[in-house]
């Protein structure tokens, strides 16, 4: 469980990125943090694995204060996949890249091998095992970065902008994968601008604006509330927009799922036919 207790964070250059943020993310929860650029999303999640320490207030992960342990210790529990894979890839082969963290955490060689193979297969990278990560395309590099974190099977997984540069098929795979992790009771936190992706996953949504959390709740509630969305400069998902425009039909407004929308509209049509 992640407990954030009234934290503030000021960067050395004097910018106050977080202003009195409090929240609690339970084990097995799937949360999406959204908001405009510079709202403090990445700054907030960097507190979860101790890369940043709060200026005031405290962050507890499973009851342990992040100020008391090193990032490396915390990282074993909290996996963090950075936005830009080029900020972490350095090995000669994809295989070594994925094994890097496992070596840092002191996994045995046989275990390392098994886990590397598992992560490669999971993200469809098995054919690139011996390829240099620098030879891969942008989307593939992103998957290598993801695999290199998944390999040590962290309890909490943070993904910063996971959908950028991924085609529909890869996004769908990512969604399936997140749902699978969720079924295994892992905590997943994504930072994203991709409203449609969030609408399809239907997680808990935290909206941020100027260093504060302005909305917190189910995606179907938050993403269909025009007031908070404009505050956080987010456009509602397309399904929600249709339902907002069709307000004359007296439809429910909190629908973001395609199948649910189809069912609701069909019901209305049937009623009119009768």
């Amino acid at each position, binding site marked *: 469980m992640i407990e954030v207790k009234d934290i503030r964070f000021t960067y050395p250059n004097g910018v106050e990125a977080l202003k009195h943020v409090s929240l609690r993310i339970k084990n097995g929860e799937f949360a999406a943090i959204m908001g405009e650029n510079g709202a403090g999303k990445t700054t907030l999640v960097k507190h979860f694995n101790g890369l940043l320490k709060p200026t005031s207030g405290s962050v507890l992960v499973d009851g342990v204060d992040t100020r008391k342990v090193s990032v490396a210790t915390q990282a074993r529990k909290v996996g963090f996949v950075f936005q830009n894979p080029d900020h972490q890839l*350095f090995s000669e082969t994809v295989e070594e890249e994925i094994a890097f*963290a496992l070596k*840092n955490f002191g996994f045995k060689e046989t275990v390392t091998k098994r886990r590397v193979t598992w992560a490669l297969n999971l993200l469809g990278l098995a054919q690139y095992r011996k390829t240099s990560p620098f030879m891969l395309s942008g989307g593939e590099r992103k998957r290598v970065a993801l695999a290199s974190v998944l390999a040590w099977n962290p309890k909490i997984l943070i993904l910063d902008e996971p959908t950028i540069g991924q085609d529909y098929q890869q996004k769908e795979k990512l969604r399936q994968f997140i749902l699978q992790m969720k079924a295994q009771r892992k905590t997943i936190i994504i930072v994203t601008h991709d409203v449609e992706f969030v609408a399809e996953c239907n997680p808990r949504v935290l909206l941020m604006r100027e260093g504060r959390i302005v909305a917190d709740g189910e995606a179907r509630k938050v993403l269909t509330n025009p007031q908070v969305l404009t505050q956080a400069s987010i456009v509602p998902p397309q399904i929600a927009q249709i339902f907002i425009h069709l307000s004359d039909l007296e439809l429910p407004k909190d629908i973001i799922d395609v199948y649910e929308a189809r069912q609701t509209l069909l019901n209305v049509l049937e009623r009119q036919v009768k």
Partner: protein
Amino acid sequence: MSVFDGLRFRRVYSPIHNLDPRIKFVYVCAIFVAAIIFWELLPLIILFLVQVPFVVLAGVKREWVRSMRGAAFLATIIFLTNFVFSFIGAGYTVTASNVEYALAMTLRFVVLIESFSVFFLTTSPDHLGLALEQTRIPYEFCFAFTTAVRFVPVLAEEAQTIMDAQKARGLELERGNFLKRIRNYIPILIPLIVSAIRRSLELAEAMESRAWGATKNRTNLYMLKMHRGDFVLIAITIGILVTAFYIRLFFGIPSLNELLGSLF
């Protein structure tokens, strides 16, 4: 990293900021020469103090003090090395002239840092580029220079992000013996170099698509012109150089110890 803080430009206006960078550079070189030709403590103290009015006039006291503090570590090393060697040379005795010599060598280094720091704190990279151009250096070189200067903070920020990303994968920079610690930096350096190369290629493409180098004779919106302040600085520079050489050639410089002894 705080040494570099003293070299980072901030856009403010002051009589010093408005001076022609070429003249400022000549001034820095003059101070450089003057600091090199003296190895006595007294003139170096004077050289150190001469620059204080510039710092005050430019209003960069805080940044300047920070860069001086950053230089303190190196200065201590210089002092200790000089002191230890003159201590051994003098037959394992501590004399006043020993200490004074070591202090003078340290102060010489401080004076060099001080003048460079004042130069970089008060000269915008754009002005520097303009100055290079107007000294008839080919534009390609000027551009390369100003671009390099401009990308230093970007690179520093990127290095920080890379460190964060690798720490999040369990890398501990401070672990192991000396050699291991150096090896710990490989996962930081490789992504940094790769992305710098990638960025430079992208920059080259972006520049070419915006017709870089299409015209042979470039014109500038701003031109550097000499003002009254610049002539004053030239006079000061010449004054310092002439005085320094005159004193060096025709006077014996008393050590601080002797001077204090003759006064009391």
